[in-house]
């Protein structure tokens, strides 16, 4: 492993830490401030700082140091966390994240002077900032990154280096203390190099579970006095052997690799102990560097030994240990690994093959005359259940809830509100709706802009709202649901709605529409998504950061989605995006028509119905309708619509599925029979072929054959005249565009 790879690991970690920070802020916003979340945020920032220090990313170190100091004040006294301060902190996290990005991309330096000044002013940080390396950077704004050794010199010349030998006795554990907490505390005092001493751990068969065998040697580089360091061990003094020695400050810093390691260890100590990935990377780097001595028991050993040292040392069965780890994992809400989606896709494909293959073996077993109670058949059943379970787990990897993206929006909302002085609350609905990860990734940017837009242009100022008889705080509702085999995401605000007069006027000014164009309200609303349209005079500094609505439309379209707007003056606007669930799992109704098997998304089906002679009525020469509780629903013959067979005249006694499309259009799909309901994996037809009219996607059935998933919306649209109208609308839009 080379330095670049270690850096990559660091940046991956940073992204995870920042995600953690975001979710902690979300919780704070909903449930109020509590010490645990502040600690989580603090830990994350601290970890980033630690790692950044090791690599000599001076911009990152200096800024995260300021943020950390600010957080420390809130951490020490929770009442210090006023709304203003939290808002500022939330904004600082944005800047921090920008700096991380800039550092990774070697991009332009992010200007953090302003927010640093704000932070210092609001948290009265000026005098407390004791770390020379950061003050130096802040004063000079030296764009040249400080090299590792320079950084270290700065560090060591000012601080003390303690060598702490800490060997817990068994009584320490009996009294409910946890060395991990102590080590973490030390980690907060300064830079730690921790080496675990496992030389006393006996062979497994002579090992007593009640005794303590592990000890640690910690090299702590800190500005704190010995007293402060000793304080960490206050509660365990009688329960351990402890020696704290002050070493001479090292002048030469001890070589780059060591520094990186110590930085990374620091990075790890702030973490929950069950993250193996970074620990591994440390291990590898140690091996590479060929560092001798106790290098083989570095962080990984600490990491695993710390949480339940007694149990693990006692040779607890792996399953039980695993359970503990799971509990630990549950504590940390957002434990993730990053995997290339291609790998997952491949896994899913192979899994599908396995399921089909399993079904074939199973069938063969039956054919070969094994009775259903024979051991072979019973094993086959077990095999089948296992395959199912594995398949479900594999599928679950690719589909992810939209929650993380939604959570991010609440932060955007805060940010925009604080800038505009407007008040708005975010209501989330259906945030656990699962979509394919690619869709999720593509959603972030358009949603961010739409939320900004909704507050900036939609929600009125608090005074205006009160004057209009609305509650002072506006509401923005963000919801996600599955509908007709697509995911529909709505952004709804209760603001002023679209000012059609202005939009039309702007459109004419910009030459997007001609002056005498006859446009419906809907057409006018859609104008805001036309390229080149921007209500420039109303644009605040916020929108300057984002993208235009036409870019939003484009990015939604690139996901294969559609976007529509509805707006009521004085009551608010609703943006509705509907996107396909490529590769997601779908609950499907399996039906037969014209001898073929089709899947209809269950979400689109309102009811299924066996028609009786009186239910079908002919209208005109060709068309038939179903009379359903007083409503007339057009009957669409699926086989005929798809061109597989001719139209049948007598359909009484047939089976129909009453379906509904997004625009409330209803239809009764006539099929030969309904085979049942099952979960299917959506497979793209586009990857090797092309879009097929009326077909949303394909799936592979248990017998290995392909079944087509119907696009209910398009089938209805093709049939009804309303479709023709909406088509011409779309055409009009395109002409305008």
């Amino acid at each position, binding site marked *: 492993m080379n330095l670049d790879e270690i850096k990559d690991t660091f940046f991956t970690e940073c992204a995870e830490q920042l995600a953690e920070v975001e979710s902690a802020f979300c919780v704070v916003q909903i449930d109020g401030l509590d010490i645990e979340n502040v600690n989580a945020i603090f830990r994350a920032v601290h970890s980033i700082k630690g790692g950044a220090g090791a690599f000599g990313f001076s911009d990152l170190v200096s800024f995260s140091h300021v943020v950390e100091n600010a957080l420390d004040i809130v951490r020490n006294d929770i009442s210090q966390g006023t709304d203003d301060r939290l808002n500022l902190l939330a904004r600082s996290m944005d800047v921090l994240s920008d700096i991380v990005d800039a550092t990774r991309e070697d991009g332009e330096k992010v200007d953090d002077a302003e927010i640093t000044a704000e932070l210092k002013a609001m948290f009265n940080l000026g005098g407390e900032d004791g770390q020379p390396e950061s003050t130096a950077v802040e004063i000079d704004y030296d764009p040249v990154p400080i090299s590792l050794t320079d950084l270290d010199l700065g560090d060591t010349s000012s601080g003390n280096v303690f060598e702490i030998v800490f060997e817990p006795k068994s009584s320490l554990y009996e009294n409910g203390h946890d060395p991990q907490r102590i080590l973490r505390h030390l980690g907060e005092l300064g830079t730690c190099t921790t080496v675990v001493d496992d030389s006393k751990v006996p062979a497994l068969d002579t090992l007593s579970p009640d005794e303590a065998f592990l000890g640690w040697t910690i090299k702590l580089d800190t500005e704190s006095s010995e007293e402060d360091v000793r304080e960490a061990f206050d509660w365990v003094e009688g329960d351990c052997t402890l020696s704290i020695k002050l070493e001479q400050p090292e002048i030469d810093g001890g070589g780059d690799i060591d520094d990186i390691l110590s930085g990374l260890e620091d990075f790890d100590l702030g973490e929950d102990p069950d993250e193996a990935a970074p620990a591994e990377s440390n291990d590898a780097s140690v091996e590479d560097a060929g560092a001798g001595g106790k290098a083989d028991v570095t962080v990984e050993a600490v990491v695993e030994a710390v949480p339940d040292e007694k149990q693990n040392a006692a040779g607890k069965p792996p399953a039980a240990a695993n359970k503990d780890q799971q509990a630990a994992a549950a504590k940390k809400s957002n434990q993730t690994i990053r995997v290339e989606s291609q790998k997952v896709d491949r896994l899913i494909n192979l899994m*599908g093959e396995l399921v089909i293959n399993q079904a074939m073996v199973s069938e063969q077993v039956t054919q070969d005359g094994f009775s259903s109670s024979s051991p072979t058949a019973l094993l086959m059943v077990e095999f089948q259940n296992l395959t199912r379970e594995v398949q479900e787990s594999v599928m679950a990897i690719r589909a992810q809830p939209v929650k993380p993206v939604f959570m991010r929006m609440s932060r955007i909302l805060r940010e925009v509100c604080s800038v505009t002085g407007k008040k708005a609350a975010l209501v989330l609905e259906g945030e656990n709706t699962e979509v394919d990860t690619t869709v999720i990734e593509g959603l972030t940017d358009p949603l961010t802009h739409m939320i900004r837009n909704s507050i900036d242009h939609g929600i009125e100022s608090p005074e205006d709202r009160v004057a209009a008889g609305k509650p002072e705080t506006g509401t923005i509702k963000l919801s996600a649901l599955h509908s007709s085999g697509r995911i529909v995401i709505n952004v709804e605000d209760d603001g002023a709605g679209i000012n059609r007069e202005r939009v039309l006027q702007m459109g004419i000014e910009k030459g997007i529409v001609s002056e005498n164009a006859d446009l419906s309200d809907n057409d006018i609303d859609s104008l805001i998504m036309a390229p080149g349209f921007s209500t420039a005079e109303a644009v605040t500094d916020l929108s300057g950061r984002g993208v235009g609505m036409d870019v939003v439309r484009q990015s939604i379209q690139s996901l294969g989605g559609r976007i529509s707007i509805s707006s009521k003056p004085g009551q608010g606007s609703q943006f509705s995006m509907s996107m396909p669930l490529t590769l997601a799992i779908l609950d499907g109704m399996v039906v037969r028509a014209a001898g073929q098997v089709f899947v209809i998304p269950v979400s689109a089906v309102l009811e299924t119905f066996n028609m009786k002679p009186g239910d079908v009525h002919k209208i005109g020469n060709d068309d038939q309708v179903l009379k359903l509780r007083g409503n007339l629903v057009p009957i669409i013959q699926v086989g005929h619509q798809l061109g597989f067979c001719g139209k049948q005249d007598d359909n009484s006694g047939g089976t129909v599925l009453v379906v509904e499309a997004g625009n409330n259009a209803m239809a009764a799909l006539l099929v030969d029979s309904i085979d049942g309901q099952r979960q299917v994996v959506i497979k793209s037809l586009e990857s*090797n072929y092309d879009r097929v009219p009326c077909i949303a996607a394909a799936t592979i059935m248990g017998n290995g054959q392909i079944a087509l998933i119907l696009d209910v919306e398009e089938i209805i649209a093709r049939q009804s005249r309303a479709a023709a109208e909406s088509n011409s609308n779309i055409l009009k839009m395109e002409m305008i565009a």
Partner: protein
Amino acid sequence: MTDTDFQKSSADNEFIAFLVNEHEFCVDIQYVREIRGWSHATPLPHSPDYVIGVMNLRGAILPIIDLSARLGMSASDPGKNHVIMVAQVGEKTFGILVNSVSDIVQVDSEQLRSVPELNSAVVKDFFRNIIVMEDRIVSEIVLESIIPEFEAEAA
């Protein structure tokens, strides 16, 4: 160096020959991924008549093209006597329905003849080279032209 040169030159002129309605054709072997037996294909609505449907190839959706119909001959009635040649052109993988695969032929450059000026559009569009062997004449199919043209639609 000599080795790779040799491989390259031989690969350049290696073709898989197959039969469609007793006519012999071939394609460049580099495009062919595998050859498998016929199994049920699911028909696609509103598709050209030479697209038989889609098959499951280890979890991927594989469109099947009836080469006979594509070349303007009669549409095949696919069954156990047919085989599918799985070919990849660019990003797209698709299957070609043929009667049987006869052999792999290695051809010297001098055996390759350009297509003579004929009146038939099929010949112009779909054939690249004519391979003249001692006892037979085999036409090389241009796979890129066989697959339906989506690009035009998309733009």
